[in-house]
């Protein structure tokens, strides 16, 4: 019921903005800024969040006349936010030089400990999150923009194939294939980062 009234309220505000009331857009901005920030924080580097958040809302504002209300405004805005993140990575990967640096020794040790059989729960709990994030960023930076987005949405955030295909505007088959391949690539990257025969089990797990 609340969701319905919220949706109709959003549609009303959208109508006002489209009719020329620029200031009404501030209601939508305030209401959905956290939603957009949460999406951007997950997908983008810290220093890019504010600028991209501005881009998301400007893009949403300019696209408002095309909003038909077939989905909720929240869903529509989430789609814009995710696609803006994808566009960011596409531009980023085009302009960057190919990263050649391998994992530092500290990260290699961390990775080795993280996936060793003895580690399990205790390591999981005490694990240094900073190292984990750095290793994750290092691995994700070596994937393509499309692989990165699919991996983050399906593998880390747990979105279904249908939801991911809606968010990115791709076919379900494309998402399915890319999700499988990107997971394989991630595991290959991580297993190759530490040359040890003990971690070959990663590939076994990835095929499920």
């Amino acid at each position: 019921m609340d969701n319905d009234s919220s949706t109709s309220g959003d549609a009303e505000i959208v109508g006002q903005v489209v009719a020329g009331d620029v200031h009404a857009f501030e209601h939508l901005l305030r209401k959905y800024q956290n939603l957009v920030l949460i999406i951007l924080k997950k997908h983008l580097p810290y220093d890019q969040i504010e600028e991209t958040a501005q881009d998301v809302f400007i893009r949403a504002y300019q696209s408002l006349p095309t909003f038909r209300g077939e989905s909720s405004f929240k869903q529509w805005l989430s789609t814009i936010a995710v696609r803006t993140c994808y566009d960011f990575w596409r531009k980023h990967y085009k302009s960057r030089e190919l990263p050649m640096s391998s994992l530092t020794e500290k990260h290699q040790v961390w990775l080795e400990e993280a996936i060793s059989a003895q580690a399990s729960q205790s390591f999981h709990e005490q694990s240094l999150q900073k190292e984990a994030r750095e290793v994750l960023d290092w691995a994700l930076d070596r994937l393509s923009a499309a692989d990165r987005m699919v991996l983050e949405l399906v593998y880390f955030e747990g979105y279904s194939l249908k939801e991911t295909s809606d968010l990115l505007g791709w076919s379900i088959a494309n998402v399915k294939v890319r999700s499988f391949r990107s997971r394989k690539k991630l595991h290959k990257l991580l297993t190759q980062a530490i040359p040890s025969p003990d971690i070959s089990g990663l590939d076994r797990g990835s095929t499920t």
Partner: protein
Amino acid sequence: MNPPKTEHEVLQAILRKAYSEKENVEVGDQWQQKVMRRVRELGALQPTPSFPEMLEQMVWRLAPVTCLLIFGLAVLFAFADFTSGYEVFQLLMNGTEELTFALFAGL
């Protein structure tokens, strides 16, 4: 008792946790003002025209070209000689068995 986790599952759990931690970074609160400033600069939105409106716009856009075309064709017809065309038409109608390609082509 839970079965022991595979290396893959352990690593996946750690990476997922690291990924979800990204949500906790703090972001400034100045960007909203910048958004509204840019929105005001952009001004009021132009609603997307409906199909009849789009058609009307297209008709008016093509009107000068159509007028020029009509004028050009009128001039062409005014100065054109239709006699030879009429003779060929007569030939076709009256003596199709005598009509050869050479005759038809005016050779």
